[in-house]
């Protein structure tokens, strides 16, 4: 029997390596056959306390394709939350109306707290800058699908490594699979030492760079993220470094044939559009994989897979 039944997914470290693999295997089945009405007797609540396009639609599409009914809101305006109801009371009430809660909330730690007061399982769809574990699961799915394995890969992480929560989660998850990390960022946006410590503690290696060109020949995966202007107190600094983390098609000459480019999206200008038509671009398929991974998580947590 699966260990995932009845579990919450709040932080990527809540699941073990075996459990990641179990979810990815189930997701593969949904990619082959996404429309299975196995949740037709279930109600999934999607509570989005702040706007989200991709994540909410992906969860709702996943639940719909499995035949579940969906209740919830995409904006707290017009709900009891706007009247000042506490998160505690909202969750206790919604849990009594549903079999599973999917929640996005801008307050960091809100998902862990909500899972402790909820009588039904809860999936964190993003709690501020803290965690967004389903994004990490779909990143793992995309890596395994494009490389045929998660083991022994050279993973280049590019852009805002300091504040990017998807970067931190993916590094932590890939520490289970003997990865080598190539970290490319402006010096102001280097990976925090606590995350580097996770790499060291796993007995793995990382290398730091400031120029994206240096990692292209060795990378199996290039994971791009956005460098935001507002992260720089001095606009001159931003101007100086902004082009060091932009990927263009002409830079891809000499990359490994199996190399694929991932991006959590939305993209702004860090991947130029001429990359989209190369065989290395994988970011749009990556977003599509989110549906299968979220189907797998909901089905496993509700105990029907």
């Amino acid at each position: 029997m699966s260990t995932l039944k009845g579990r919450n997914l709040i932080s990527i470290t809540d699941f073990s390596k075996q459990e990641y693999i179990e979810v990815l295997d189930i997701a593969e089945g949904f990619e082959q056959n996404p429309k299975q009405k196995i949740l037709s007797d279930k109600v999934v609540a999607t509570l989005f306390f702040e706007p989200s396009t991709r994540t909410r639609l992906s969860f709702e599409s996943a639940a719909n394709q499995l035949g579940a009914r969906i209740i919830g809101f995409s904006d707290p305006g017009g709900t009891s939350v706007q009247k000042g109801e506490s998160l505690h009371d909202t969750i206790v009430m919604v849990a009594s109306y549903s079999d599973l809660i999917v929640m996005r909330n801008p307050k960091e730690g809100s998902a862990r707290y909500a899972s402790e007061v909820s009588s039904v399982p809860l999936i964190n769809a993003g709690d501020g800058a803290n965690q967004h574990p389903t994004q990490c699961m779909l990143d793992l799915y995309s890596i395994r699908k494009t490389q045929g394995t998660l083991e022994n890969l050279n993973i280049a992480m590019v852009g805002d490594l300091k504040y990017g929560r998807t970067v931190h989660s993916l590094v932590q998850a890939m520490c289970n699979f003997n990865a080598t990390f190539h970290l490319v960022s402006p010096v102001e946006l280097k990976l925090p030492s606590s995350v580097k410590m996770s790499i060291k503690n796993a007995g793995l290696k990382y290398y730091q760079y400031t120029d994206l060109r240096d990692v292209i020949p060795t990378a199996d995966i290039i994971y791009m993220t956005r460098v935001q202007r507002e992260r720089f107190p001095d606009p001159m600094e931003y101007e100086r470094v902004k082009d060091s983390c932009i990927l263009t098609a002409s830079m891809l000459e000499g990359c490994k044939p199996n190399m694929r480019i991932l991006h959590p999206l939305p993209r702004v200008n860090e991947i130029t559009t001429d990359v989209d038509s190369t065989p290395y671009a994988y970011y749009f398929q990556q977003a599509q994989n989110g549906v299968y991974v979220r189907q797998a998580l909901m089905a496993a947590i509700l105990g029907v897979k």
Partner: protein
Amino acid sequence: MENKKEMVVSAIENGTVIDHLPTESVYQVIRILGLERYTDEVLIGNHLNSGKLGRKGIIKIKNKHFNKEEISKIALVAPYASIIDIEDYKVASKFNAEIPDHVENFVRCANPKCITNAEVVPTRFDVVDKENLKLRCHYCEKFTTKETLKFSE
């Protein structure tokens, strides 16, 4: 034998002596234990000579014995403090305040965006580094350190 150094602050018949406090922690300990509102005798000495610390602080509280949570609070701001229980002018027990592995309820999370600072949620931390005092919030996963440590009202 009466200790000459302790004579600087009079002995108490019954209660607790908090000794070997860093001088900068004395008033903080008074505040976090709520001793400003304590209505029995509280004797405070600071910048006293100490073999161990060079200079130290000491607080003697009459007719008061501290619970585990209160001792954890003392340990967080004065990790080498000695807690001495006094009964009938004699030392009934003496031990060092020890930083616990987990801290609940009385420390505030330093992350202003944490749910515990937005709603009435009891705080919970894992102490991940006792030497440099680093607490990891159970909810937002951010660190609260010696520099950002604040106690709940």
